[in-house]
C-alpha cells in the first residue's frame, strides 16, 4: 500500500477554496443587470392613475413573511429577465425567498397531480386551458380578491377569466405566424400554406401540450373549411402538414434555436417570444393569417392545500403591479394585463398591446378545449408519431 502524500491534494484544496469563494462572492453581489434600454423615454403617462405601491404593509405583518420560502411552478423561459423584474424585487420587498419549479404546462400539471393533497408548490402559472384542467382535477383553489389590491387596475377580461376566481390573467399572448422573407415565396397568408410542398422540411408546429397546441388544431381546421366546433378538417389535413415538419417544438426556446439555425422557415409563434426571435437577426416577417389571431392569457393560480396562501396572494398581487407589468413589457417578456401600463410605440408594436390589437384577438372557449384535450392529445400524437 502506498503512503498517502497529502501534498498532492494541496492544489485541489486551493482550487476548491477558490471555487467556493467565487461562488459566495457571485451569490452575494449578483452583477447588477443593465437597466431596461427604453426606460429613459417614457410613453405618454397617465396622470390620474395612482399606480404607486399597494398600501404600506404594517410592520409586524412584513416581519411574519421574513425568512419564509414561496415555491412557484412556471415555464422556464426568460428566467433571467423574470429574475430581474419580479423575483429579486419581491424577495427584497418582503424578505421572502422564491424557488421555482420549471417545465411545460403538461409536465407541471403531472407533478401537481402526483403531489395532490400535499403540494410542494404554492403558486402555479398555467396557460388558459391548463387552468381548466387543474380546476377539474381539484388542484387549485380560488383566490381571495380582497387580498389582491391590483385587481382593480386590470382589464376586465383578465380579472377572472376562468370563472369562480380560480385564476388571474397576468399576461396576454397572441399566436401568429412568422416566416423567412428570404426563403419563402409566395408569402404565407393562411394556415393552409403550411401544407405547401415547397416548404417541406422547413415547417414547425408547437406541440399539442403547449399553450397554443389546441388553438393550432382549431386554426388548421378553419383553414380547411372547418371551425371551432368542427375540427375534423384539421385531423384530415394534419398528416400532410406533418410530412412538412422538421420537428414539433415543446418550448419557445427550442423554436428560437430552430429559427436561428436555419432549420425552420415557417414558424407559428407565441407573441412573448417575438423579442427573442428578432434577436436571432434572421430576416423574419410576422403576419396575421386570414384565420385571425388567437389570444390566450397566462394565468396565476393558488395551489390547493398550500400552507403559504398569504405569501401566494402577495406574489399574485405583486405580479399584477404596475411596476412589474411595465418592466416585463419593456423587456418584451410579457404583454401587460394591467391597463395602467403605458409603453412607447416601438415596444407596443412587438407586444399584444393597444386597443387595436386587443380588439381583434379571438379568444377560444378554453373550458371546452379542456374537455376535449385528452382526446386531441391522443389523435395528435398518433399523427405525429408516424
Amino acid at each position, binding site marked *: 500500500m502506498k503512503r498517502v502524500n497529502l501534498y498532492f491534494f494541496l492544489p485541489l484544496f486551493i482550487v476548491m477554496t477558490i471555487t467556493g469563494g467565487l461562488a459566495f462572492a457571485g451569490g452575494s453581489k449578483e452583477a447588477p443587470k443593465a437597466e431596461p434600454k427604453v426606460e429613459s423615454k417614457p410613453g405618454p403617462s397617465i396622470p390620474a392613475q395612482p399606480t404607486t405601491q399597494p398600501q404600506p404593509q404594517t410592520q409586524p405583518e412584513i416581519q411574519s413573511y421574513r425568512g419564509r420560502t414561496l415555491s412557484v411552478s412556471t415555464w422556464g423561459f426568460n428566467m433571467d429577465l423574470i429574475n430581474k423584474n419580479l423575483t429579486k424585487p419581491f424577495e427584497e420587498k418582503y424578505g421572502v425567498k422564491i424557488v421555482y419549479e420549471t417545465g411545460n404546462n403538461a409536465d407541471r400539471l*403531472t407533478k401537481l*397531480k402526483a403531489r395532490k393533497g400535499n403540494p410542494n408548490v404554492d403558486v402555479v402559472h398555467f396557460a388558459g386551458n391548463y387552468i381548466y384542467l387543474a380546476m377539474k382535477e381539484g388542484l387549485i383553489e380560488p383566490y381571495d380578491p380582497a387580498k389582491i389590491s391590483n385587481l382593480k387596475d386590470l382589464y376586465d377580461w383578465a380579472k377572472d377569466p376562468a370563472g369562480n376566481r380560480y385564476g388571474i390573467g397576468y399576461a396576454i399572448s397572441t399566436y401568429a405566424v412568422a416566416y423567412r422573407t428570404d426563403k419563402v415565396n409566395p408569402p404565407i397568408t393562411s394556415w393552409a400554406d403550411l401544407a405547401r410542398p415547397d416548404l417541406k422540411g422547413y415547417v414547425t408546429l408547437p406541440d399539442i401540450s403547449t399553450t397554443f397546441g389546441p388553438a393550432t388544431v382549431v386554426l388548421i381546421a378553419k383553414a380547411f373549411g372547418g371551425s371551432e366546433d368542427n375540427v375534423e378538417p384539421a385531423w384530415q389535413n394534419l398528416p400532410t402538414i406533418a410530412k412538412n415538419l422538421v420537428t414539433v417544438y415543446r418550448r419557445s426556446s427550442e423554436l428560437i434555436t430552430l429559427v436561428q439555425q436555419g432549420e425552420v422557415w415557417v414558424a407559428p409563434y407565441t407573441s412573448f417570444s417575438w423579442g427573442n426571435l428578432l434577436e436571432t437577426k434572421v430576416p423574419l416577417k410576422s403576419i396575421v393569417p386570414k384565420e385571425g389571431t388567437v389570444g390566450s392569457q397566462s394565468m396565476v393560480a393558488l395551489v390547493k392545500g398550500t400552507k403559504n396562501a398569504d405569501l401566494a396572494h402577495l406574489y399574485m398581487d405583486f405580479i399584477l403591479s404596475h411596476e412589474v407589468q411595465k418592466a416585463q413589457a419593456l423587456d418584451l417578456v410579457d404583454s401587460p394585463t394591467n391597463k395602467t401600463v403605458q409603453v412607447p410605440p416601438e415596444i407596443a408594436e412587438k407586444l399584444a398591446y393597444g386597443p387595436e390589437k386587443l380588439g381583434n384577438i379571438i379568444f377560444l372557449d378554453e373550458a371546452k378545449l379542456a374537455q376535449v384535450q385528452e382526446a386531441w392529445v391522443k389523435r395528435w400524437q398518433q399523427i405525429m408519431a408516424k
Partner: protein
Amino acid sequence: MELSRRRTLPLLLLPGTLCVGGFFVLPLAFILRESFLGEGGRMTLSLYVQYIQDPKFYRVFLRTLKFGLLVTLLSALISYPASYAIARTERGKKSILMSIVILPLMTSPVARTYAWIVILGRFGLINQTARALGVIQEPLRLLYTEGAVVVGLLQLFLPLMVLNLVSAMENIPPEIEEAAQSLGAPRWVSFLKIIVPLSADGLVMGSVLVFTGSITAYVTPAILGGTKVLTLATLLQQETVVFMNWGNATVISVVMTGMALLLYLLLRKTRPKIS
C-alpha cells in the same frame, strides 16, 4: 478471541444492513409487489401482459438491447489492441495512461455528453468541417439519432473494458509471447493464440459491465437521443414525469432491474473471484 469475534460480527453488519434494507431493498420490493398488483389487490400479471404488447415498449426494449450489444462489441474491438499496448508499456507511463482512461468515468456525465453536442450538432465540428470541405451543402442531422447515442455510450463505457482487459493482460507473462515468437510465430498470431484466450476473463467481465451499463444508462440517451430515440431508462423517466403512469413505470423498473441483477449474478456464478 473467536468468541468475541462472533459477538462483534452482528454489530459490524447491522447498521449497513439496516440502511440497505430500509432504503434500498424495501422500496424495490414495494415496486415489485406493485407491479403484480391488480384491481382489488389481487396478484396478476396483467400490467406486464398489457405493457409488453404495447408496440412502444416493445420497440424501446429491443432498441435498448441492440445498443447494449453494439456498444459491447465495438468497445471490445477498440479496446483489445489498445489495452494490449497499455499493458506492455513500462510502469511509469502506464500509470499516466490509466489515469487518463478513467477520466471519462469520473467526469460529470452532463459535461461529457455536452461535448458530443459540440461535435454532432447542426453547427458542430463534423457538420462545419464537412461543409467547409464541400462534402455537404446542408447540415446533416446527427444529433437525436441512434448513432449519436451509441457513440456517446461508447465513450462512457470504453474505460470499463480497457480497465478489465489491461488488468487481465498484465497477468500474462511476456515470456510466453517471446517464446512463441522465437519459435517463428508472427506477432499477430501470438496475439490471437496467446493473449486473447488468456485475457478472456477480462473480456467477459468487461463485456458484462459495459452491457449492463449501456442498457441502464440515462444521461447519454436523454441528451443525445432526446424523445426520438428512447431507451428503457428514458422511457421510465417519461412514463413517470410526463405521463405519471405508475403501472408502466413499475414494469420497466422490474424489467431493467431483473436484467441487471441476472447478469451480475451470472457473472458471480461463473467467475466467483471478482477482483
